[in-house]
């Protein structure tokens, strides 16, 4: 865990979050802390409440009980502190790739009256926004497609633009809702590499005393992908000893960190995947919900070990 990012600025805190629809309890007492720079994968069986949790964190559907705190503020409406990338891209059709990426800068840093009544100033600022967005397109490998509309881009390209669009505002947390689900294998792999690259940038920032730029919560159905791209995996499930009260976080463990283009350590992947499958997806395996929730414990143990060595 030497290269994990566990300590540092708290980016997101989910406190005692519960949600229900009528008589149906969906989420029960979900607690989660994510620090700046972590890339966390969320997995769980279909219908377990992943989307409900994501919407609560996004602010579109606040929870019935509990709180989501991002950057010190309680989230009850969507805000620029939490970005999102959906499976089906959600780019704005009427904007080019470059304008799509610059859209957040426009909305976040200027108002409609400013853009209307201070046109020369706005046009000057607009130039800077476009330069900045071009830089972000370059980061995701799309500098040559700036003037193309979303309909002229492939699925993988659109998803890269969507990621750049959300990242340019430097949100405290970026939610990726099954971002690679609709992509072919090769494109999916290249985007996974991109995420691994982000994590390496986070580590570099951390080692230089800067706040890491990318804090990501990625929802995925692919267990291998979850373990491969994230440095921490959490599992949401109702297969536990308090099932009647709704789904809880039943798995929270660190996972191996890969560098882009490093050969995958299949053994590590397989061992953790099997554990994850058993803990989160096996309805017959009833256990205490906290049995596999050990991320912060492992971090503390590691810190104690490091202190002992010193």
């Amino acid at each position, binding site marked *: 865990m030497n290269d994990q990012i566990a300590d540092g600025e708290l980016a997101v805190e989910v406190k005692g979050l519960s949600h229900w629809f009528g008589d149906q309890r969906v989420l029960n007492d979900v607690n989660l802390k994510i620090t700046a720079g972590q890339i966390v994968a969320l997995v769980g069986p279909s219908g377990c409440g992943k989307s409900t949790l994501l919407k609560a964190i996004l602010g*579109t559907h606040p929870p019935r009980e509990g709180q989501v705190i991002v950057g010190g503020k309680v989230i009850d409406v*969507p805000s*620029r502190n*939490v*970005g*999102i990338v959906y499976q089906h891209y959600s780019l704005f059709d009427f*904007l080019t790739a470059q304008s799509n990426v610059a859209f957040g800068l426009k*909305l976040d840093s200027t108002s409609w009256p400013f853009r209307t009544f201070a046109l020369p100033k706005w046009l000057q600022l607009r130039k800077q926004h476009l330069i900045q967005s071009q830089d972000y397109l370059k980061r995701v490998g799309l500098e040559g497609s700036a003037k193309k509309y979303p*309909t002229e881009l492939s699925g993988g390209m659109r998803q890269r633009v969507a990621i750049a669009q959300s990242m340019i505002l430097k949100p405290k947390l970026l939610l990726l809702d099954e971002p690679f689900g609709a992509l072919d294998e090769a494109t999916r792999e290249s985007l996974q590499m991109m995420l691994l690259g982000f994590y390496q940038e986070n580590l570099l920032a951390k080692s230089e005393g800067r706040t890491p730029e990318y804090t990501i919560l990625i929802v995925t159905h692919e267990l291998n992908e979850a373990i491969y791209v994230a440095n921490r995996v959490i599992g949401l499930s109702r297969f536990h000893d308090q099932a009647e009260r709704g789904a809880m976080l039943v798995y929270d463990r660190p996972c191996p960190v890969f560098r882009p283009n490093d050969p995958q350590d299949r053994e590590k992947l397989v061992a953790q995947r099997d554990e994850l499958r058993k803990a989160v997806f096996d309805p017959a395996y009833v256990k205490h919900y906290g049995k596999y929730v050990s991320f912060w414990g492992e971090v503390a143990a590691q810190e104690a070990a490091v202190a002992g060595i010193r």
Partner: protein
Amino acid sequence: MIRRPIPSWLIYVLGVTGVVVVLAIYAGLSIRQTRINPDQNIFPGLQAFGEGLGEITKVRGGESNPKPSWLSVDLQATYWRLFLGLSAGVVLSVIVGISMGSYTFVEALLNPIITFFAKIPPTAMLAVYMVVFGIHLKMYVAMIAFGVFFTMAQSIYQAVKKDVASDHIDKAYTLGASEFEVIVEVIWKQVLPRVLENLRLQIGPAMVFLIAAEWSFAGEGMGYTIKQQSKLQNMHVVYIYLAVLGFSGLFFDWLLVQTRRRLCPWFGE
């Protein structure tokens, strides 16, 4: 085979052929009718059309007090009414359609009323407009505006519901948009091509309402002159007026297509 593509040169050839065939049929009818009655004016010939054109474009009044030609007066009257009516109808329908698609409260409030009025033919409402607005400019403007408003508001409302996904709205909020900006910067821009398409489709019906109203109540305008000249069986004038209506319709259509291509290049054809 259905939708099998054809070469572009063939598209032009077929288009020209259609026009030539219609002209040939007319010429045949005109020649046949002239043989039966040399003074006929049901299918006038080229010479009669020349005379008709001269008549409707002739400047009236004396040299000291020149007055515009019939065609000029009628075009101005009809298209001013059309412009004002369509402008009012489009502005109103955009505001109401977007509000209905964006706010459930407005949707619940207005949907039954708009659906009801959309079913009443605007020409059937002519009597109401006449009583309320008199037989002046206001009546024509109101008739066209309300004539297109209900149908167009429904279309825009549907476009907002179908073309603007909730994900897009949520995404805009996460990018820092205010509620007003979501409407102006996302919803309006997404439905703009639909508004322009609807406007194209509504020009035809709007002209139908207007010509019908001018036929009944106006003292000038295309509908008025067509009525007067058809009473006198001056078909060489009537046909020219119909051609002017057809060509101006084509022109407006072309103008709107160009506007859509310029404002919404992302929309495609």
